[in-house]
């Protein structure tokens, strides 16, 4: 009886050891394109998803060659967690740069190119966007000419959080983008993207 159990245990151990020989060693570096640990705030993967989505939308829309886009104001006041606008901006810049047709500029660089007058108009545009006022077409056109850009990408990031029975949380982030044409004053592209997470 005992010999039988010893035999079984021996064979099992041998199987496990054999399998172990074919298992590659684990290591600390993990593929950054995978989702990683999920957090209630926006994590790295969420930024990538948001950038991928707006870039995809712009590619599909097919804006004219050499179209210069600037990431304008992004309203994050309805989001209880930190939103790294700079990260969104830089990631989008990398993606558009790879594509080659569209050019991307940071608002701060554009303000420099437009001089004091450019800065003043940009502040006005920013104020109107943050206060949900309509954007004045004339301001857009003036700013476009001063800074030599074709479009301003406005953003709004908001989040709704719910506590569920047993205390798990559900959070939905909503990214709303509007690309305003600085020549015509009309919105070239309007897009919404949502990320919902259960934790």
């Amino acid at each position: 009886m005992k010999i039988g159990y010893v035999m079984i245990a021996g064979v099992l151990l041998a199987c496990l050891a054999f399998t172990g020989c074919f298992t590659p060693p684990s290591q600390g570096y993990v593929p950054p394109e995978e989702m990683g640990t999920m957090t209630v705030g926006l994590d790295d993967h969420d930024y990538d998803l948001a950038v991928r989505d707006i870039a995809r939308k712009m590619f599909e829309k097919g804006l004219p060659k050499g179209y210069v886009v600037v990431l304008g104001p992004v309203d994050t006041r309805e989001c209880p967690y930190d939103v790294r606008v700079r990260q969104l901006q830089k990631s989008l810049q990398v993606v558009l740069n790879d594509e080659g047709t569209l050019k991307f500029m940071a608002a701060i660089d554009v303000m420099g190119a437009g001089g004091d007058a450019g800065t003043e108009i940009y502040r006005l545009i920013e104020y109107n966007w943050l206060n949900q006022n309509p954007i004045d077409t004339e301001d857009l056109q003036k700013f476009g000419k001063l800074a030599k850009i074709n479009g301003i990408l406005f953003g709004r990031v908001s989040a709704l959080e719910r506590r569920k029975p047993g205390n798990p949380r559900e959070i939905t982030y909503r990214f709303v983008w509007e690309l305003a044409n600085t020549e015509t004053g009309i919105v070239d592209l309007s897009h919404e993207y949502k990320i919902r997470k259960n934790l």
Partner: protein
Amino acid sequence: MNKYIFLLGVMLVGVVLTTGCRSPSAGVTVESYPHNKISVNSKMFGGWMTVTEVAAAKKNDLLQAQIAAQNTTTRDCQFEYRFRWLDKNGMEVSTPMSMWVQVSVSAKEKALMRGIAPSKDVEDFDFIVRFLRTSARW
């Protein structure tokens, strides 16, 4: 003695199955070159999801691809997919847009997964779909 052999057999099958579940796998892959080729790398994933359609077209000089996959089971399924874009020489065009995207489908539902090439140099793509996997498990 027969009892021991039976027990041994059951345990061996258990060990093999447990090991199989832990083996990483690319699930199902779709390659667009030289013609659409679908490979089922994981029988388990292949039993859940079947790639039913592969469509590719150029829009604004950028390659767009859409893959349809059907959940063939009566249970909800969470999975992720990724496109890898290749130029005419088969070299990978690296882009931050080539990332794992998570999707959920209901029982028997068909999922449509769309991707657009990051540049005009892209001529082909690789598409990988697999069960959800977080880097944290490594």
